[in-house]
């Protein structure tokens, strides 16, 4: 069985006919070739698939694509092109707040979500704010530094 799906992704209208069981992150990656969102655990723990749906941070592996009917979805690709997360990206590069880069797109979404709610977080608040996103390479210290730096910028 397939269902029709229409939504907006990174500002572009998208229509597709998909299986209802397809997860949103798989739809973005496999149907739209938006491979910047990563499937790290596929059970909602690691945060590598974090994206914005109607302005809220969502785990792309815990939402079915058909649930995004009519929604406005933003992924790292679109957030990069609009410059929405440019300050964070610059700080992540300058501070080497990424190593393998697999968690980074989701981490940036989490960081942007945090800064939107709390533009001047303390280090502790940053640590809490991104605790839903695993990073296996950095040990987090540099990520905290980079978010702190971006918040000050």
């Amino acid at each position, binding site marked *: 069985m397939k269902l029709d799906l229409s939504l907006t992704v990174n500002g572009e209208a998208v229509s597709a006919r998909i299986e209802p069981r397809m997860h949103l992150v798989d739809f973005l*990656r496999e149907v739209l070739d938006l491979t*910047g969102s990563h499937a790290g655990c596929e059970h909602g723990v690691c945060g590598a698939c974090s994206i914005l749906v109607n302005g809220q941070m969502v785990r792309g592996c815990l939402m079915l694509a058909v649930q995004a009917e009519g929604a406005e979805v933003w992924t*790292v*690709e679109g957030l990069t092109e609009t410059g929405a997360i440019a300050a964070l990206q610059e700080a992540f590069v300058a501070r080497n707040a990424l190593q*393998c*880069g697999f968690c980074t797109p989701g981490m940036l979404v989490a960081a942007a979500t945090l800064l939107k709610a709390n533009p001047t977080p303390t280090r502790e608040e940053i640590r809490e704010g991104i605790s839903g996103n695993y*990073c*296996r390479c950095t040990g987090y210290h540099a*990520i*905290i530094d980079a978010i702190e730096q971006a918040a000050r910028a």
Partner: protein
Amino acid sequence: MNELSSVDRPNSYIGRSVPRPNAKRLVAGRGQYVDDLRLPRMVHVAFLRSPHAHARILSIDSTAAKAAPGVVRVVTGAEMAAVCTPWVGVLHHLKGLKSAPQHALVVDRACWQGEPVVAVVARTRAEAEDAVGLVEVAWQELPAAVDMEAALATGTPVIHPDLGDNLAFTREHVGGEPDACFADAESVVVQAVFHTGRHTGVCLEGRAILADYNPAEGRLTAYHSNQAPHMMQTVFAKHLGLREGDVRVVCRDVGGSYGIKVHVYPDEMATAALSKMLGRPVKFAADRMEGMVSDIHARDHRIAARAAVTKDGVITAMEIDDLTGIGPYSVYPRTSAVEGNQVVNLCGGPYGLRGYKARTTVVFQNKTPTCQYRAVGHPIATTVTEGLVDLAAEAIGMDPAEIRRRNLLADDVYPFRNLAGLAFEGLSHHACLTKLLAMMDYEGLKAERDALRAKGVYRGIGIASFIELTNPSPFMYGIGGARISAMDGATVRLDPDGSVAIASGVTEQGQGTEAMLAQIVAGAVGVDLSRVRVTTGDTETTPYGGGTWASRGAGIGGEAALQAGNALREQILVIAGAMLQAAPESLDVRGDAVVDRDTGAERLPLEELGRIVYFRGDTLPKDLPRELVATRHYTPKDYPFAFTNGAQASYLEVDVETGFVKLLRHWCVEDCGTVINPMLVDEQIRGGVVQGLGGALLEHCVYSPEGQLLTGSLADYLLPMSGEMPDIAVAHVETPTKESALGAKGAGEAGTAGAPAAVQNAINDALRPFGARVFAQPFTPARILPALGKI
């Protein structure tokens, strides 16, 4: 010519914290991990995995699976064995190590829960998984050998009857006079039984391979999430009946590896074989659940250990009895005996002992195979050694820092060969400890701890000194018969526009390998860093090499790049000399131009030199060499390994009511010789520390008595989160190796090597008022509360 060292050259990038050139791509979501790649006619494979720890296949019925939508092929072990030959994970120099032939798919008997049994290939991964559910396997469950303590006991099933017993490997080493030291009536003997919990790497990008066999040319191209492409080229060729030259392995972005992605996995071999069978691209991307039961595990050790210490604080001897369970097979081709072997090699390493005795017993069991994971054996050896040192200090009433000062090898004793037989070229234990204690304000911290203790707040300070094996020579694997290169090459080329291209055999998984290579070569040639680009991870386009493991990237790959960069500069100067009618010795390359060596005055932009050489060679003297490309290789020869050292400290608080540990601060001082990019090195240390902290406090592969993994999802297997990790202060002492011009030693594993020991000692310091101690990792409330007598 008076050759300036790479560090002294005017435009050197050595020692500078420049950002990584590849980071911009990754923050924009433009990485190319294997699962991001798509090829025409590509199909996907999913595996039926053994649900049992030990079971015989009675029959397999694939009828329904073959008829399922989208299914292209269903392959069983017998069919697979006709295409992919089995392998045996042994090395000659690990004397007596035995293992059984391992197949890509189970032929008749599964030996761990998660072992791949049947491969289903379909148009999509979802369809392949659907059809896996339709494969009917009739199993005969067999008694399993799960508990490593009972592996050699009578009545425990022998997993591979042809091997005679479940003993894979054992080694005992005796140095000096341990028995005399322990018999000394003036000495105090301390002892403990340590457990390091079985855990695994959990790369956020699961293992993945896209294998593309092209029958028209008889060649296999494997896009592989892997650290060692040349090693895999050999392995694929050997077991799929191809010539090495007909296999190309490409490693683009790798989403974490830490040693997990440097081994031969049956599902990945099966994927390559399926591509050969089908003549089309086949993709396998492990999901998290199957990764947890099929990625290698590590560090499943029980160590009974004791130390003798004189009343004035001289630690005279250590004795170590290590037992480790490695699963049912020794992993190919690096073997699963290396970790236990390293425990024998590394215990007591920082200290000048009079007696040392160590034994490891490596046994088979029906659990996921274990093998080398970041800092192989080091966190185990350091936990045991530093745990004993703190016990010794407590036994004689000496401060933990003071007993280390009295026993660490002196900084002027090198070169030195210790009782385990390790050769140290130059270490800096005392300099590191001194720096560490100053950084953490040791005396101030002790005062704070004591003041809080009076208020019922239980904080602890733990110190751990350690050694780390880096820059391995052929003594690591080559002498054992493995085709794993200890040599690495770099090719450096000047293009017509004056830019420089590097191709290197070492690989990038986020450590900053490519940044490190670019910095070294930019400085060696004399160009701006922005003019350098780097290719790694492709057996077709890079010089042969080992890849990145055992902290060898900078020390070995970096040295090859330095030599190649120097050679290119010499080539440039010979050509420039002819063009400018000047002696090459009077010229240099700086800032993208040929300059007068003495005055620095610009004589010729490299872009102009490139234009003449490539497009107007007619204007140059006929016999002038015009090579603008140089390849150099490097293998360490003077020492089997470049040992490094360092010291870490942890400051934490134990909630004695709940048993929870709160990490407050962590410090690490380490000595990796020449630091090429301080920021990247510090981040390697920090990331390594947190992986060590994960093993010490959270991560645990827990099994049921039947051999079922109980922590097989990230809901059950806990990883360090940002909210519970501390800030980590890092500093360095630099003792460059004299073996290379660069002087770099490895840094990637130091953090992991020392962190668990520092945490263990800090927890036991916090628990000291209660007379409680813990030595079994992970140090969870379930371990701490019983030690406190609370449960």
